[in-house]
């Protein structure tokens, strides 16, 4: 759905995007991760033909960008760097202007001018606009910015539903927990370079430990004496076993189990390891993006 080869963008002396080879496949929920200022938004703008690449190739929906961008974009829904709307018009009028041809039913939308909307409402309006033409590909830059937890959850559920109905989702974020819950694949960008691109499951290897929740946590801790690495309320982290064997053992001992699963390392640890300090920090030794060789990880399997 999205392929870039050697995609590079230079703004004057600043190398904003450096040799990025993205590969987003049909049906992916692709999380594009990276610190602020790492080049995520510039890549997204190039995908949409807003910014022209210095070198490299882009294909979206199998067609080259920007030369055939007008054939591609009608099938792409986009939210770029926050939603925008004409503040003096109502939400309905804005949606009508954004797509005069057809409106989706936005139940409950009223005549209030958009400048009176909350940030969350604007974000929803922006998403509604992105969804207006039932796109095959959604390109969303920080789609849950400004939303409250319920809003984030609603958007996540919506994106999963759309994805299951056949829409490929490409979204950028720096909220790792959100990406972890939503995405099937991730690409991590740092200082303009794509330092990793892989299935999320491959990025979160099991740690070899097992997480158990049990109302009989005290007795379970005693039963597993010596294997409990840590305990938090009714939750135990157990070493030296696998979930199936542990479950059998606990049940045989007459202990009730609420939840049992292998522990995985978090995406956050991985991303922090790959990207280092935020790019919008100005440390004395930071230099320009691109001056540094990329971390050695390269593309993951």
């Amino acid at each position, binding site marked *: 759905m999205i392929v870039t080869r050697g995609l590079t963008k230079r703004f004057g002396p600043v190398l904003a995007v450096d040799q990025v080879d993205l590969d987003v496949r049909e049906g992916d929920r692709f999380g594009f991760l990276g610190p602020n200022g790492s080049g995520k938004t510039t890549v997204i*703008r190039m995908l949409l033909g*807003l910014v022209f690449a210095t070198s490299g190739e882009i294909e979206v929906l199998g067609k080259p960008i920007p030369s055939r961008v007008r054939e591609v*974009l*009608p099938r792409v829904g986009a939210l770029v760097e926050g939603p925008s709307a*004409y503040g003096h018009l109502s939400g309905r009028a804005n949606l009508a202007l954004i*797509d*005069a041809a057809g409106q989706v039913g936005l139940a409950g939308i009223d005549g209030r001018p958009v400048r009176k909307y909350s940030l969350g409402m604007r974000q929803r309006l922006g998403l509604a606009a992105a969804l207006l033409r039932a796109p095959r590909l959604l390109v969303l830059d920080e789609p849950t910015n400004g939303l409250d937890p319920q809003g984030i959850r609603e958007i996540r559920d919506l994106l999963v539903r759309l994805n299951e109905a056949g829409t490929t989702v490409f979204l950028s974020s720096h909220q790792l927990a959100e990406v972890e819950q939503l995405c099937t694949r991730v690409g991590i960008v740092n200082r303009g370079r794509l330092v990793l691109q892989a299935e999320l499951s491959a990025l979160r290897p099991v740690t070899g430990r097992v997480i158990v929740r049990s109302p009989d946590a005290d007795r379970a801790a005693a039963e597993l004496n010596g294997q409990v690495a840590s305990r938090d309320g009714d939750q135990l982290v157990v070493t030296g076993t696998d979930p199936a064997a542990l479950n059998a053992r606990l049940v045989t001992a007459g202990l009730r189990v609420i939840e049992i699963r292998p522990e995985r390392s978090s995406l956050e640890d991985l991303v922090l390891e790959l990207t280092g300090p935020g790019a919008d920090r100005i440390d004395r030794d930071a230099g320009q993006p691109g001056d540094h060789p990329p971390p050695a990880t390269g593309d993951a399997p």
Partner: protein
Amino acid sequence: MIRVELVKLVRRPRTWASILLLCALPTVVAVFIAVTHVAPSPGQGPALLSAVLANGTLYPAAALALVLPIFLPIAVSLMAGDAIAGEATSGMLRYLLARPVGRTRLLAAKLISVIAYVLGAVVLVAVTGYATGAGLFGTKPLLVTPHGLAASSIATSLSGTPMTPADIAMRTLGAVAFIGVSMLGVAAIALFLSTLTDSSLGAALGALAALITSGVLVALNSAAVVSPYLPTRYWLAWADFFREPILWRNIERGFAIQGVYVVVFVAAAWANFATKDVTS
């Protein structure tokens, strides 16, 4: 897209606020003149104003003369300067382009909307001028002379031709068209600047700075060499419609120079906008 831009133009409060102000100034002036019956003597003050006391149907042209030097260029610069830069500031430009509206089409729609505003503003000022003029002043016969207009009662010594209402209407139409086209030159400069910057105000002020520079140079004898090519050089040539015979020379040059400015700056705006990185 053109329809969408025109809807936006019509629904935007500032469109009507600016036109209201443009129409208000000549109305206020008309009221003062009508109450005091003191008009600038011929040759002083804005052209034509001295003649309107005699014949109010001339007031549309006089009204345009009042807003032409400052008010109208400011309004036009603000609207045209806002065309692209305003979309960039509000963050809508990226969504318009991702919709996708082709860049050329968007610029064309903006241009048409700006033209509609300019011509609409000029025509509305003229119409308001006619209404106030015909209402407040008389319609005494006028003579049109090689030096301009005069009320026939005070200009008996001048050799002139009496003006019929149809004559006044035709000459006024000519002046409206001339001033409209002059303002399109301003709009083209502001539109070009609007594609250069993401600040509407920057684009508008840039266009006004160009006009002020042009005005200063036109008045400067030592800059006479460049003066025929400056945008404001022939702005006042519309008054030549009110001479007998009509002095076509400067009118033609005015139309030609504004045409050149429109073509050059619209082309520059297109060349810049079509290849520009949209990072707003």
